[in-house]
């Protein structure tokens, strides 16, 4: 892990309008509200949180699928927010976004070979022979036989489609891959093979991962650092070990307490957090977690807590820590 961050988000915001039946704007959902963090080369940074906390919006805003309402994204030191499309195109080779099931992103009418060829034609000046060689190489790296190159996606199993999708993402040797919920909805046995593949590819291509997931056990197994999000904010950012050993934010603590632990205590006997997350269009004043927080005090309603370091590898946004 080098010291220069490969990606830096600086006060990143993304707002979505809330419209009524007539299309009038009646409010704003602050899906991202001043999110700042750094990703270092070679690491896997996990982004966890419950649905609606803005973790997918974060991934999409970073690659430019959503335009940010405020803040900056620095990729390898250059500001990539608001770049013209021509400059964006060059960036695509280095910064890739991976949807939940990359297999679904394949064109059903294209053979695997054509799908894998396309990024090389668009982004590189390789000759036809060099492209073929590159495709053969990547197929073996994702564990598929070269005989599959002339098949169509529907002739492959779901797991093989996923591998082709990943191969396509890795075709241009990206430096950073944003993975959006790569294992949600999978059975445990399939999940473990996907995670294993992602880990192999990370070391083979020396990739940096931004791993967006709602599943803390998966993130724990995959990531070096974890950022916990709640209603558009990062509430705690820490090294994986530190987070699981000494989580400081009350929300992180509840999240950890909610994970079933086979062979250990039973969550259904001990879990204490009540209520649902509030409506993101009308977040509470001050700290956004205060309506469910067991430690909330009067000050939490008045002051908005900022993410501040409390240990070498741990930052928390809480006034009561």
């Amino acid at each position: 892990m080098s010291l220069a961050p490969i990606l830096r988000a600086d006060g990143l915001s993304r707002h979505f309008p809330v419209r009524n039946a007539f299309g009038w704007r009646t409010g704003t959902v602050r899906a991202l509200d001043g999110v700042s963090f750094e990703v270092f080369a070679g690491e896997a940074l996990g982004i966890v949180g419950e649905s609606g906390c803005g973790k997918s919006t974060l991934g999409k805003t970073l690659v430019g699928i959503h335009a940010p309402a405020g803040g900056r994204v620095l990729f390898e030191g250059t500001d990539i927010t608001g770049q013209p499309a021509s400059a964006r195109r060059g960036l695509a080779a280095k910064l890739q976004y991976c949807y939940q099931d990359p297999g679904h992103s394949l064109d059903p009418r294209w053979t695997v070979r054509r799908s894998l060829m396309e990024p090389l034609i668009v982004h590189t000046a390789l000759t036809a022979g060099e492209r073929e060689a590159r495709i053969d190489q990547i197929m073996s790296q994702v564990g598929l036989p070269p005989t599959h190159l002339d098949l169509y996606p529907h002739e492959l199993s779901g797991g093989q489609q996923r591998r082709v999708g990943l191969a396509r993402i890795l075709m241009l040797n990206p430096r950073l891959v944003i993975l959006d919920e790569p294992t949600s909805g999978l059975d445990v046995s399939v999940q473990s093979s996907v995670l294993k593949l992602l880990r192999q590819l990370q070391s083979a291509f020396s990739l940096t991962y931004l791993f967006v997931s709602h599943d803390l056990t998966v993130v724990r197994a995959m990531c070096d650092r974890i950022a916990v999000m709640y209603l558009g904010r990062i509430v705690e950012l820490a090294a994986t070990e530190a987070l699981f050993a000494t989580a400081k934010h009350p929300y992180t603590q509840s999240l950890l307490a909610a994970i079933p632990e086979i062979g250990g205590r039973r969550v259904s006997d001990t879990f204490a957090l009540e209520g649902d997350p509030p409506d993101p269009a009308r977040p509470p004043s001050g700290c956004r977690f205060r309506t469910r927080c067991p430690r909330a005090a009067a000050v939490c309603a008045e002051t908005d807590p900022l993410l501040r370091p409390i240990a070498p590898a741990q930052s928390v946004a809480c006034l009561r820590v």
Partner: protein
Amino acid sequence: MPGDNLLEIENLRISFATAAGVAKVLDGVNVAVRPGEIMGLVGESGCGKTTLANAILGITARNALHQSGTISFHGEDLLAMPGRRMQDEIRGRRITFIPQDPIGSFNPLFPIGTQAMEVMKWKSPRRARREGRGAVGLFGRYPRRRRAADATAVAQMLRAVQMPVSGGVLRKLPHEFSGGQRQRLMIALALLPQPQLVIADEPTSALDVTIQAQILKLLKRLAKSSGVAVLFTTHDLGTAYEICDRVTVMYAGQEVETAPVDTFFRRPRHPYTVRLLESLPRRGRELSEIGGEIPQLTRPPVGCRFHPRCARASDACRNARPAIAQLDGAHRVRCYHPFDEVAS
């Protein structure tokens, strides 16, 4: 001890006609649920959990080709029961259902109070006891005395699932509730007819982890306090550990292992169960995968359906499905080469 079981499924086989051929979705399944226990039915997608749940409720899809075996509930075979009696006495009354996705199961156009009373009009335990004047017919009136008693029961049940009754909750439409609240309402609707068995089909897999913990806690408390048995299907082993008293594992339409929950997680014996537990991600341990893929149900492997992926498979496994072996206590496994007592 067949007499002790509330629900006993024996040798159930169900096939479906599909474009690719006949899919043998359930192939000789044996599951038993005792009164008041929470039985977990664990398996990966496509293993037949939902088909089994539908078969118990008598709502198997019409393209079912072949159905054999028995589903006995209180000693009566539900598969042989006339449809009218099934509808009047069993489905929604003595056996109720909690779906995975509550938004798809509420009518979006009616307030939840109306929907709760609709359930009670037909499925109230007071109707079964013939309280109030006359039975409700197709155009029949809802007897007023029973209606009042049912409304009280609805209010009590909403309090039991921690939904505030004040503030016009009963007049709200389903979309006005959050996912966790809708699942609470579904649990309330499932418990209102005072059933003996609730079939919960992955009730928490659409929920966030903190909401899941709340719902599991609630379901466990309510099931234990009212003494209702629950057949809880899930693909998540952690959830099964949380809530179940016993666990049955299914693989590709066959049950492979049944054990009390602590034995199950401490000393699994079937190779599939062992590999499944090992594939859970855990810090400080290499990720392990089962290898291979789930078989096509149109062309299932002969014998034990797990044998193509099993490191311990022998010729016996390829020829015939192993019989149920009764191990210590209530631990039952279908395998020629189960893991030893000390393993894993």
